[in-house]
């Protein structure tokens, strides 16, 4: 009986510890949400999303160009980064057991640990210096480099858990290896890979350091890949370090917009990856 009571007590204590850890993990999350919403929500207006910024002291104005700039640069970064990242993941999962695969995997791991400011410098040297000015393209290249390693490793893991029996089924139908890789294995892993892509996109959208001296900033609308471009994150940075009270408020509101953007991406990923077939489990 004593051991039974002791066991019950231990069980209770461990469950309690888990609950404490859960609450502890929730504190930073909820405080971030609370602070950003409470300080930023009052500044939300249609103008904030659509208008250009105004000089200090003038009321109104928005971050329309920064919002568009972020979407534009992240979109461009996706064009470069997603195919390379997912493609590398397919390669690692399907052909990555040799020395080449190990090298690629090692490189990806090293690259994913490189601080984002360093990647900014690399993009500066690779794109900005040869082109002689800051540009959206340079920012996108930096963001793409940020995306690739994590995406490659995530895709690899997701592709590796696809049951081998599906590969066999496909090959036994006389389907070639590469078609099996892309149309059976990758397709089966689609839900996970799309989620990994959206997480990579959300992370890229939240990066400031790689954009500071690649895309720089812009007070006006810009849709050209070879011109400096505003972004939400750099706008937040500039507003936050300014000495002006109304710019601080704008920084909070811009931060809220960025959070909403990332949240929207998460919801979209769930909607996109829901199985379209009837009766699917």
């Amino acid at each position, binding site marked *: 009986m004593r051991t039974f009571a002791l066991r019950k007590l231990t069980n209770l204590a461990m469950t309690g510890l888990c609950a404490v850890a859960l609450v502890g993990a929730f504190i930073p999350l909820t405080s971030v949400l609370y602070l950003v919403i409470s300080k930023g929500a009052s500044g939300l207006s249609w103008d904030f999303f659509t208008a250009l910024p105004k000089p200090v002291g003038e009321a109104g104005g928005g971050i329309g160009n920064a919002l568009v700039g972020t979407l534009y640069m992240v979109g461009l970064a996706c064009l470069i980064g997603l195919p390379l990242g997912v493609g590398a993941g397919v390669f690692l999962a399907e052909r990555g057991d040799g020395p080449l695969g190990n090298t690629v995997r090692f490189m990806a791991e090293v690259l994913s640990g490189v601080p984002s400011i360093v990647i900014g410098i690399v993009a500066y040297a690779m794109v900005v210096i040869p082109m002689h000015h800051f540009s959206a393209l340079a920012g996108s290249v930096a963001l793409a480099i940020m995306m690739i390693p994590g995406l490659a490793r995530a895709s690899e893991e997701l592709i590796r858990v696809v049951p081998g029996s*599906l590969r*066999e*089924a*496909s*090959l*036994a*139908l006389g*389907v070639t290896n590469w078609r099996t890789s892309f149309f059976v294995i990758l397709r089966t892993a689609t839900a996970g890979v799309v989620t990994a892509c959206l997480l990579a996109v959300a992370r890229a959208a939240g990066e400031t350091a790689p954009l500071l001296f690649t895309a720089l900033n812009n007070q006006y609308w810009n849709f050209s890949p070879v011109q400096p471009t505003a972004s939400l994150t750099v706008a937040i940075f500039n507003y936050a370090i300014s000495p002006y009270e109304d710019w601080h408020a704008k920084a909070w509101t811009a931060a809220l917009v960025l959070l909403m953007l990332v949240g929207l991406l998460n919801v979209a990923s769930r909607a996109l990856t829901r199985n379209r*077939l009837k009766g699917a489990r």
Partner: protein
Amino acid sequence: MSAVASPAPAGTVESAPAPAPNKVEVENLNVWFGKNNAVKNATLAVKPNTVLAVIGPSGCGKSTFLRALNRMHDLVPTARVTGKVLVDGQDLYTREVDPVLLRRRVGMVFQRPNPFPTMSVEENVAAGLVLNGIRGDHHELVERSLRKAALWDEVKDRLNHAATSLSGGQQQRLSIARALAIEPEVLLMDEPASALDPIATAKIEELIHELKEHYTIIIVTHSMQQAARVSDQTAFFYMGELVEMGPTEQIFTNPKERRTEDYVTGKFG
């Protein structure tokens, strides 16, 4: 496609032409995984439109033997195959044979139903064509294949449902329909009913009887009753060795080898 009377392709026939052409001939087949000789020197022949059952205890090499017949071992880096496997007189293990094209002639059904989970019932049946880039309307082919697999009546109203929403037995017949849709000549079945309940098993066995009219079937099974029910010929494997092969009735009633007799009478295995 089942050209029963047509002779083997010219130029591949060695010495005198055989009187009754075999659909599948295996000569001195060895399969190695590293240093493990999983199939030892197997030699046998299968006539067209017959069913060969391959029986034996677990680990005797019967599945390994079956997978050598459509070169599925090509996927295993440590596997090595020696000897000959001839389909219509053509050796599969020569350099000229593309395993991808070969597998369209020699279809395979696996132990566990493995429909593609992202595809509907209809897409699964058409997968062999669509995945090979043959687009278009495959509806007729889908219906024909599902009818051949005795599944049409059960799924005709939910062709666009997820394949994984079917029962296990239906999924296995779907896998068979998918294999039939690419119109193979030989059908390999690796314990196709071992994951199924008795009723679904009976349906699969009935199906094998019907499919025999159009295909040559080689079925691996651990159930001796099943082998006795579905096959014309039976081959007994033990420890990687083809111990004996003959008409099914003879193997079960009057085997020549002592080891076969011990196995079929239940003394071991």
